[in-house]
């Protein structure tokens, strides 16, 4: 299908205008939103992640692809809501309290979104209380936390503890990431998973979802 290939190319090359226009044309031609997501968006974001791992793509290319993906998503989301279609899972994501590094978090958020998940991005410097409130109100299946500073890593534990205190810990899977974070640290603070980069993060969410 040429439509989906064009959208795939537009996302891969970070062309937001073209992604928007092709999506609009595909919708008008009667292509189902979910088909666009599975046939073009997910493979495009997978490929973007792969190119990043291979050091062919860098942060600028990732952010551009993310923006192109979002411009297509903007058109699809209302249609999916109207037709009562569900995304595969809902994810709340944020950079933890005291930490303003949000580039990695933004990339993980757009990779998840481009892979068909509903993403609620709380931004950076997010307090444990704000994570708890988001879990209460939005009922996600996943909470993703990012930290880039050794001094803010403990805020991940504080947030997990706050979810525990609020009686919400068992309702969500908690995933953590960011350059200084490790698998051992995830285990130590009682998170459900850690992953090193955005494309493996998508794989992790998918595999935890399959287990559930």
């Amino acid at each position: 299908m040429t439509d989906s290939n064009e959208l795939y190319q537009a996302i891969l090359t970070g062309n937001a205008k073209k992604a928007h226009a092709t999506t609009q044309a595909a919708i008008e031609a009667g292509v189902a939103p979910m088909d666009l997501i599975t046939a073009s968006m997910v493979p495009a974001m997978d490929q973007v992640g792969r190119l990043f791992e291979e050091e062919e793509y860098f942060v600028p290319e990732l952010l551009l692809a993310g923006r192109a993906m979002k411009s297509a998503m903007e058109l699809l989301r209302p249609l999916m809501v109207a037709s009562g279609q569900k995304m595969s899972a809902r994810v709340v994501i944020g950079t933890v309290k005291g930490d303003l590094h949000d580039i990695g978090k933004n990339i993980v958020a757009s990779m998840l979104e481009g892979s068909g998940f509903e993403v609620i991005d709380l931004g950076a410097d997010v307090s444990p209380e704000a994570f708890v409130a988001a879990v209460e109100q939005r009922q996600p299946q996943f909470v993703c936390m990012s930290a880039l500073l050794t001094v803010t890593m403990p805020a991940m534990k504080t947030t997990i503890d706050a979810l525990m205190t609020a009686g919400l810990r068992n309702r969500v899977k908690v995933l953590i990431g960011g350059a200084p974070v490790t698998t051992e640290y995830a285990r130590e603070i009682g998170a459900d998973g850690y992953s090193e980069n955005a494309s493996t993060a998508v794989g992790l969410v998918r595999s935890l979802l399959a287990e559930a």
Partner: protein
Amino acid sequence: MTGRERILAVLAGQGADHLPCMPITMTFASDILGAKYLQYVRDHRVMVDAQIKTAELFGFDYVSTISDPTREAADLGANIHWYEDRPPAINEELALLADKSVLSRLQASGPITGRRMEDRIRGIERLRELCGSELLVEGWVEGPCAEAADLRGINRLMMDFSDDPSFVHELFDFTLATAIDFAAAQINAGADLIGVGDAAASLVGPRIYNEFVWPWEKKLVDSIHANGGRVRLHICGNTRRILDGMGTLGCDLVDIDYPVPMDQARAQTGPQQTLAGNLDPVRDVRNGSPETIGQSLAEVLRQAGSRWIVAAGCEIVRDTPHENVRAMTSFAQSHAAHGMIQ
């Protein structure tokens, strides 16, 4: 040899009685003095006392005025978040150039206006006065790419490279001019070496680095040299794909962070380049032990050869055990620096 002589000798490719040791310390140094980091970044006298105390306690060969990325941006009018005991940060949401059209109206700021840039200059004067020729005194400027990220917001800048290349060129001209003046004033104040922090450049690939970043970094390096200074380039993060360019800037010292294997850095920058690094500040230095640190440094020395200065890939994090930092100096002090075979 004094610490200053030792570093200058190794930068010049000559031998020294032992390897120099130049780990970057900021919050770590502030903690050593028992100051709050807000005082450290706001009052050069606190920074000076902390740097001297730390250098003496651990036997470092230098003192530095690196503190946070916001000195230039603050003087230019950016919106800064202040914290009691953490480095200040720029509010990216409200970045000075969130709206690109502001650039054409943005007033340049000279370094001497009684604000944050001048505070660093006063710090350099005081360090020079107190350290004489014992320790090397390092100044610091944000590189053209890092400062552009500070002013524009890094998430925006990363997309500007493809959305609006001519805006990026204009922006880099502006940040370059700021850096050139700030560096010149620091050299005048007595800095031996100017650190150029351009970490935002580690996020781009070779295409963008060569087109947008390298030419401006080169002009800065040349200007510092023309003003009688020396240059330490600090681009932390994974720079494997831009190392070739970093090696041809003509910097006196290039810092290598832990994601880059030291042998690769040596191969890509050539035998004449003095390198510093590259222990992982968290995994090797904070979480390691004096024994593992000694072993890791021996391996780095093997890969780097002796035109090399002992350091971690980036700053020593604040809760690092003191004996681990001491292990870095002990290693340096027990290994002679052999000159280049001419």
